[in-house]
């Protein structure tokens, strides 16, 4: 994760407005970049398009979960309760994509 260290307050307490504000800013920025990318036909046509979009959305996903859902600060039990199922869900999704030959082309 490239940016969490920059903005996360590393005190052991809860994050505050300062953190939340930065997270919101990043979410907005990434969304803008994503939509922007969508409107650059040459980029859309390039091989980098899909991976970079997936990466950006993964970053957004992770920071919301870590900061807004407090998974970074909360009991580690919750991390297990969330990441376990998430991993199985994503693995199932990828396996289904392969079975339906979605990566063939």
């Amino acid at each position, binding site marked *: 994760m490239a940016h969490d260290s920059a903005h996360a307050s590393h005190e052991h307490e809860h994050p505050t407005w300062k953190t939340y504000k930065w997270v919101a800013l990043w979410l907005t920025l990434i969304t803008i970049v994503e939509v922007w990318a969508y409107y650059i036909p040459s980029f859309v046509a390039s091989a980098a398009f899909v991976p970079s979009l997936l990466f950006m959305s993964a970053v957004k996903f992770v920071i919301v979960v870590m900061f807004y859902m407090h998974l970074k600060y909360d009991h580690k*039990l919750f991390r297990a309760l969330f990441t*376990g*199922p998430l991993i*199985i*869900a994503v*693995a*199932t999704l990828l*396996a*289904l994509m*392969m*079975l*339906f030959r979605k990566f063939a082309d």
Partner: protein
Amino acid sequence: MATVAASPSYARPAASEKEGFMAWLTTTDHKKIGTLYLHTSLFFFIFGGLEAVLMRWQLMKPNQTIVTADQFNQLFTMHGTTMVFLAIMPLSAAFFNYLIPLQLGARDVAFPRLNAFSYWVYLLGGIFITLPILFWVAPDGGWFAYAPLSGRTYSPAINMDFWVLGIQILGISSLAAAFNFATTIINMRAPGMNLMRMPMFTWMSFVTQFLIILAFPVITIALVFLQFDRFFGTNFYQVSAGADPLLWQHLFWVFGHPEVYILILPAFGLVSEVLPTNSKKPLFGYGVMAYSGILIGFLGFGVWAHHMFSVGMGPVGDTVFSLTTMLIAIPTGVKIFNWIFTMWGGSIRFTAAMKFAIGLIALFTIGGISGITHSSPPSDLQQTDTYYIVAHFHYVLFGGAIMGIFSGIYHYFPKMYGRYMDERLGTWHFWLNFISMNLTFFPMHYSGLLGMPRRIYTYDTAQGWDTFNMLSTIGAFLLMPATLIFIWNFFKSKKGGEPAPANAWDAATLEWSIPSPPPEYNFAKIPVVHSRYPLWDLTHPERTKDVPHTDEGMRHTGEHDVVDMHIETERRTAKELGIPMPSSTIKPFWTALGIVVMFTGLLIMPHNKMAGLVGIFTGAAMLVGFLYAWLTTPLEEHH
């Protein structure tokens, strides 16, 4: 230990408030709910069994006409559906309910009213999906309801509507229960009971809850698609719109394979309690037993397409799913051997429960090995959708799950009713069951490998299958008296069985440290647990001297009613002791009924739009209203 009279002297406080029927309808006591689950699911087991017997009768000889083709198709659909969703899963749930809090040292589950709700949804959903067979309008698409046959185009009648909606109703029940038990196990263990001290049944149930939590959403979505297709004209499985029917198959089996482990793991847990107790030895390799359960559950999500080797997945898919499937033999084998070596060197007492547990080891192994033979796709192409598969899954389901559950019933009956079941009848039940079970299902290996397809209501003469079918049918007929012996024993022993003491089998875990049947609050004082075998710590300290002991538990509590591990003899009522118990309430029942009324409304919609809408809105209103009332009422009355 002194023998305690069967009827404990403590009064039943609930009885004074609400009598008889109403007491059951409004209960939030996990033990009563467990009892309800047990009776209901035994009823459905017999119902599903009778459906099977009817099928076997039809197949006794070639070209018979005991039932018609359409009736037969309803029979096997409902037999599979009933056994899976209405018999074995809820039989397991009966034990989840009854045992998990007792094994954990808790006074109830995490969410007692949700627990009642789960049961009522199950009961009403079970009735919803079972009633139509009495009128021969039952679902007829097979228990896995492959599209497009299950869609409106090819199944225009109401039959499959019952299935699509019914399974969704039952899914609500399973999911609600799973969140409840997962939370209970995570959060309601007695002080000192860390994960590696949980009884093995609770461990396997824990894994099962996660399988339910992760598998049921998938079938829910698959069913929602089918429901939308059937009722609202969407295209998910509409082949004329370009849909791919394999979508249903994949979604179904992503659920379906974990589902078979949902069926077997609780049974594995039960025999893991029965075997050590009756061998006077701790479970061999406890840690590995727990981990192998987790591993079975985890791998169970990566093998689903082994049910689809004949659909033309291509060699890569076949290879991957074949290999992952084979891997499951390893954790399962570990369990088998660890059970045997639990007995090895022990002092084995052959109670009926023990016989059934040993029966599980013996028979499940056969089913497991045949499972391995169809994990090999080239070989499976000669086996899939034949009676060889039917043989496989009855060996694991009947030989595994049902045997394990019978074992559990004999074992825990004294805890539930304060009386032993009749051992002699139990022995008869076991042997008759064991033999006729093999007589029923062993020949199916042959008829399958000799080319007999499954789900056929009739077959022609001279195909080479006659002998085997005759034998299977005789076996199925013999299973009726076997089961009747059990039923007779069950009800007879409830009334007049030999009284059982609290610790009926000299066992090691918490549930045996309290009176039988347990008082409403289970534990007057919550015990602090120091080792994996808390009761043996007291009764047989020499057996537990090698297990690690700590008293970390005490540090965190500070609750007034927590005391060191002890044998509970308290006989006063909760009221007298000032223990807050969840009050009984009928709201979960009405809420559950609301859901079923809603689905019934949807069922009627295509036939009578007005009536359908009335049903949907009435149901929704009931749901909202009673849920609101439920949630705004505190759980406990304050004494």
